[in-house]
């Protein structure tokens, strides 16, 4: 009986007209931690939150009394045109704990991201996109200028998809450079593979190399508006996110 429920749920998901693009913790399309040249659909708006394991946060800026901690971010993002994505992200930071170690106050790091795709994917060539995370700083105190821009990086990415028997394989290769030295472990060539099975194309599996870590992940869009993502770094450290998405042009996409 339990199996029947699962099969019924999978059939229900199958018949819903859905689309899956990508989701990162920034609200910009990509894999888990690395960018790609895929784009969300024109008019897509996202509101989401993501759990950030301390294993993947910058080594400076997310410390409390010298120790890193798990945190989360939340974001809004928009694809006003098929070639442009923008997002605005707030990442929570512990501001103060009480004597018992309970978190009393959170503060937040805010940043904007933008991605532009000058070259759309063709039959024989990949899509190419350039972008930037954490575009500029609005630090109020001079000493903050020395360390802020925790997430700033610039990248150029190329993505090509291949189809075989209804399955889709995506290859992404990117060059990424983080502005701060404390993030330099993620600099250089990064890349990943995505796979959508023909029997359930709304589901995507991902494997990526961030320049320092290997991440396996999966995401899925449910009922056209609810997007889920889960991933694991080095088979140990969990990441996860959820977001609501809407197409402001009223478009519905079949994969």
């Amino acid at each position, binding site marked *: 009986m339990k199996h029947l429920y699962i099969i019924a749920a999978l059939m229900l998901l199958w018949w819903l007209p859905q689309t899956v693009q990508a989701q990162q913790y920034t609200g910009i399309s990509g894999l888990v931690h690395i960018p790609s040249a895929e784009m969300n659909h024109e008019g897509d708006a996202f509101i989401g939150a993501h759990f950030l394991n301390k294993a993947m946060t910058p080594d400076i800026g997310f410390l409390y009394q010298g120790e890193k901690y798990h945190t989360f971010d939340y974001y809004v993002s*928009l694809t006003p045109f098929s070639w442009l994505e*923008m997002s605005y992200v707030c990442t929570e930071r512990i501001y103060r704990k009480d004597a018992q170690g309970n978190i009393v106050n959170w503060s937040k790091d*805010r940043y904007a991201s933008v991605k532009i795709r000058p070259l759309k994917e063709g039959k024989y060539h990949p899509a190419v996109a350039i972008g930037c995370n954490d575009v500029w700083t609005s630090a109020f105190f001079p000493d903050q200028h020395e360390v802020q821009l925790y997430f700033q990086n610039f990248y150029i990415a190329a993505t090509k998809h291949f189809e075989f028997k209804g399955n889709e394989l995506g290859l992404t290769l990117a060059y990424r450079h983080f502005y701060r030295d404390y993030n330099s472990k993620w600099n250089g060539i990064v890349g990943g593979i995505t796979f959508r099975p023909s029997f359930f194309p709304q589901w995507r599996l991902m494997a990526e190399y961030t320049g320092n870590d290997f991440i396996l992940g999966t995401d899925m869009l449910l009922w056209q508006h609810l997007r889920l993502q889960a991933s694991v770094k080095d088979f140990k450290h969990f990441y996860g996110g959820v977001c609501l998405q809407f197409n402001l042009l009223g478009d519905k996409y079949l994969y």
Partner: protein
Amino acid sequence: MYRHNSIRLGFIAAVFLALFLRAGQPKAIGQTSSPGIDIFSGLDFNFKDMDFETQYKFLIRLTPGFKWNMGNHWQFAGQLQIPIVNQYGIDYSFVELRAFNVSKEFNIKSLYLKASLGAFSQNRYGLDLKAFLPVCDWFAFEGQAGYVGSVFLFPYWEIVAPNRFVGTIGGDIYLPRWNTQFRGVVGKYLYDDIGVEGEAMRHFNHTTISVYARWSNKFSFDGGFKVVIMLPPYRRTHRAVNIRPASNFRMAYTVMYRQLNNRMYFTDPEQNERDGWFSRDLLHWGSHNMEPDFIIKEKTKK
């Protein structure tokens, strides 16, 4: 000084009167709006995160108002702003008058004008004139000029005679294929600052999202994004008296939380960047050429 202001006030009043009389000539009237009274309410939603002790502070105000469309694009409108959640402090705890004014829209050939007289948002009152001049399908000039004083209802009645000229002038570019609009203006603003603003808007179905940047000589740089959502129901029946939700929810996010730079009042209780200053049935330019947000059916008596 007082005499000087009186002369200026008299001159502006004469200009307004002349424009109203000019507008009264039948050839210049855009006459498609049906007369009626709309009673509505929305929410003025504000939050800020400039305090390390709290995640966010909220200020939510109810904005009940009315619009009496008297025909021929004459309108009498009023609106209050009533705080229901206030974490901003005592300065924001009072009921404010957001609009109580009479206005008239009209056109002289391709020049569209809107004159307003009365109380506006930002606790201002006085005279205001807006002008819009479409040059072609994709470009238009715009300008606004006002002569205003201050008025406060609570905690005690206070009124300061009009003493300040404000105004902006600039242009709009509209790309119909993408329903995208760029707006740029320079101006003198409510706090005597001189500044410049630029905004890029993308109009979607029932929603407009924009990014903007602004600079003023007193308060420096600021920027952010705005969201305007036209609120359902999108099919409405028009009666002599209509009770409805506000036409839109508007939110502006500022990165630097500069409260005073490039500040200008609104004259219409439901003014927003998507609709612009003029009625859809009078000015056919820009987002007014998109599918209308509201399909309004006239209620006819059997």
